């Protein structure tokens, strides 16, 4: 502490940080899911193919080649602009961002600068305190550069290979105002944005590398952000570059909040700087700021004409978006608000649910939003692997009473494991039979003594005299314990109602 004594006075004024707030703005880059690249006819479906097999003179940036705009990409970007409630200016323009890098085929990237495709929109999210509006500064279109491959790892590789398959894939950049106030809010914003983009049919979040985020974060005294001339007293911010996953964004920002708070508490000055997120370690590290300070020398792309796309934008009819679908799930299926939010938060999940909702939508919602989603997450699988046909059959088996809830979960787990291992699975019916999970039908009358539930119940009673005594002493838990024992003996196949009835009967006999 001695070395900070000089700023002690200042420190005492600023040691109370309870009035601070976290200020976050995001820049999100998403690959648009078009069939061909942004400026040429090469296919965008490159992920399983050889390096440099989806290239042509244009996306290799060969001398003399010229870009031509993929109308579909512009239409996709306009859909996004519209869904984010943006204004589409009369004229927008492509610009060149000039810098040298081995993955950059032309020595410049074609992007948009001072005349973006769409501006001034918003997206409503579920904030920390109810619904919250996050303002969108701009949406613009640009080309993805190529990709560097360091054989044997970035540090040890003797040389670097360049793969231009990715060069020219259309990207949109979405920039928010600094309206987010916590890492969790940032995550929620991203989830909502992803859902929106998927509903629009312009984005496939399952494709590797389809999303990259830069996050600006600072901690400022409350109210500082909205103030006039707020440049004064700015505590500096960090721009965390190139985060490539949704979880990564929350992690990186959480790390930054802690780092910045600690620094402020120690009375350190935070400089505005660029930081790099190290995904494997969950931390951010400072990039040498000099190296990052680039003058991109933007100027209008002379090979492309200005875009006048107001009419194109006006003609776009948006599909049902997450908020509308959530409202419909509440009214049409009677889902709980939490289920409705979960189910509509992912396009595939929402569509899956609608396919299995059937005549019994409320239990189906529980099955999908709670059980299935949990099991999928546990296995790191997505809902697209699951067939709604067999899932519907499974719910039906449970509903009919052929399998208990517990048995149903066991079947689900088995089927998901099979899918993960081999890509295919049995039918639920086959699985029920193989695992012997079919509910034990009670055989009444003469055969009663052979009835397995009755047998199991008698065994349970015989094996646990103390519990029986406790039951007679009026302790409810003792009965539940005995039910549990019967269930264990029947491996969950007994119907709870049967067990209750039979156990009560047996215990009554003893009176």
């Amino acid at each position, binding site marked *: 502490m001695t070395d900070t004594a000089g700023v002690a006075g200042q420190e005492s004024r600023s040691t109370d940080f309870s009035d601070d707030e976290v200020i976050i703005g995001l820049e999100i880059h998403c690959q648009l899911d078009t069939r061909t690249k942004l400026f040429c006819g090469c296919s965008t479906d490159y992920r399983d193919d050889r390096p440099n097999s989806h290239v042509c*003179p244009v996306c*290799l*940036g*060969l*001398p*003399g*080649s*010229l*870009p*031509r*705009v993929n109308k579909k990409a512009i239409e996709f970007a306009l859909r996004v602009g519209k869904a984010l409630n943006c204004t589409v200016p009369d004229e927008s323009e492509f610009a*060149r961002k*000039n810098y*040298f*890098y*081995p993955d950059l*085929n*032309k*020595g*410049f990237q074609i992007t948009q600068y001072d005349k973006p495709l769409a501006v001034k929109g918003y997206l409503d999210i579920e904030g920390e305190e109810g619904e919250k509006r996050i303002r969108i500064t701009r949406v613009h279109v640009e080309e993805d550069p190529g990709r560097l491959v360091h054989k044997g790892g970035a540090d040890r590789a003797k*040389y*670097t290979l*360049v793969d231009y398959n990715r060069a020219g894939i259309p990207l949109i950049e979405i920039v928010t105002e600094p309206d987010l106030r916590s890492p969790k809010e940032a995550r929620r914003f991203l989830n909502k944005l992803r859902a929106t983009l998927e509903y629009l049919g312009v984005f496939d979040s399952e494709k590797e590398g389809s999303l990259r985020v830069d996050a600006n974060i600072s901690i400022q005294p409350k109210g500082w952000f909205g103030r006039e001339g707020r440049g004064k007293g700015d505590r500096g911010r960090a721009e965390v570059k190139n985060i490539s996953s949704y979880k990564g964004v929350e992690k990186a920002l959480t790390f930054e909040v802690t780092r910045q708070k600690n620094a402020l508490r120690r009375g350190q000055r935070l400089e505005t700087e660029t930081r790099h997120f190290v995904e494997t370690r969950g931390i951010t590290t400072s990039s040498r700021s000099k190296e990052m300070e680039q*003058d991109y*020398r*933007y*100027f209008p792309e*002379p*090979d*492309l*004409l200005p875009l006048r796309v107001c009419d194109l934008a006006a003609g776009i009819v948006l599909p049902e978006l997450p908020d509308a679908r959530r409202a419909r799930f509440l009214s049409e299926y009677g889902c709980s608000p939490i289920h409705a939010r979960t189910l509509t938060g992912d396009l595939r999940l929402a569509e899956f649910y609608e396919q299995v909702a059937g005549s019994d939508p409320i239990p189906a919602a529980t099955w999908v939003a709670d059980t299935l989603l949990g099991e999928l997450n546990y296995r790191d699988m997505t809902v697209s692997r699951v067939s709604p046909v067999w899932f519907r059959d499974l719910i039906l088996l449970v509903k009919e009473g052929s399998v208990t809830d517990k048995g149903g979960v066991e079947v689900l787990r088995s089927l998901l494991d099979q899918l993960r291992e081999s890509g295919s699975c049995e039918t639920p019916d086959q699985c029920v039979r193989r695992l012997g999970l079919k509910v034990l039908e009670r055989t009444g009358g003469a055969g009663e003594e052979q009835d397995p539930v009755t047998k199991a119940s008698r065994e349970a009673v015989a094996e646990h005299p103390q519990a029986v005594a406790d039951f007679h002493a009026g302790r409810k838990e003792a009965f539940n314990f005995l039910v549990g024992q019967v269930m264990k003996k029947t491996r969950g196949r007994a119907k709870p109602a049967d067990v209750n009835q039979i156990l009560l009967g047996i215990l009554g006999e003893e009176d």
Partner: protein
Amino acid sequence: MATISFSQKDGHNAFIPTLSEADTGPGALSGIPLAGQDNISTRGLPTTCGSRILEGYVPPYDAHVVTLLKKAGAAIVGKTNMDEFGMGTTTENSAFGPTKNPADPSRVPGGSSGGSAAAVASGMVRMALGTDTGGSIRCPAAFCGIVGHKPTYGRVSRYGLIAYANSLEQIGPMARSVSDISLLMEVLSGYDPRDSTSINCPYSHIPDPEIRGLKIGVPEEYFGEGVDAKVASVVWDGITLLERKGAEVITCRIPSMVYALAAYYVTCTSEASSNLARFDGVRYGPPADPKLPWHDAFQQQRRHGFGIEVKRRIMLGTFALSSGYYGKYYAKAQAARQQVRNDFLRLFRTFDVIAGPTMPTVAFRLGEKTDPLSMYLSDILTVPANLAGIPAISVPCGTSDGLPVGLQIMGPHFKDERVIDVAYAFEQGVSR
């Protein structure tokens, strides 16, 4: 497919590579030996832009105009020498040595398309392609005594033309007669979806020498300071000939001419600084040294690969686009460019064409122009047409001290036919 053999002696260093045999086919240009220029991509044939940095580069595709020429049956017999990447007015800035002027081998042929002009003027080929960013077709045409036409911007596809300054340059025809210019225009022009600045305006025209009643504007600036008096006098004689053929000649002014050269050099160097960034040794040309860190390898590649004039222009353009200077230079240049365009639009409400000298002087002696600024100044009469995007032709109109002089005729956008008609009328008037 038939072939023609080509065994002409290249005494003026007009060509970089030549073919001893070239394919030809049926069509409007069947059997005609024709020279491509070394900045226009040809599949399987080296294309270097006169630069060491592209040494050994063989494009895997044909430029649109090359496809059109092949379709028309032309026999492309080689690629002509040029100022490196089109940057120059003399064809001395070539990594493959200077081209000499067939009219006087101690003189430059002009540039940057000096190789094409020399190949045509010396009779090696009947016609050639040139590219014109600030006068690069018209200057060598004037200096060598042939015809050269810069089409309206957008009329000929730039796809496959290795860019120097995209917003200014056009590929155009060079030949000994206006009829051949017209014939070649018919093949070259037309819409190409691969060039977004291409315009659907095909050229289908037979030159008509009738110019009675045509209004010709002659800007005072084209006969002002810096224009050689003898050249001015030869060109005035030419304009008088047009007047005798029934045209009405009236002097006029282009006030924005004072900004034209600055606007041109800021724009073309800015675009060039970006266009030439791709020559880093990663994908083509001589490979960058893989043992160096990429940053150093790129620097080394570009330091050794580019000539001095190219490096000068890259530096100028990089500066003009830099943050803090963009507004002072690039943005201002665009405003000035708009004024030049407006001046022409205004003049073309009164005049059908504008006429004047192509170049302020006759061809320089080899090695004469050592200071870049005086070289840049010699482009003053050709750059306005590029800034405005209008068609402009240079047609031989006599000699001064035994050296060719060119008459320049400029017309409104998409009136290439009109400037070609006026040039044709002049050519016919002279020959009669």
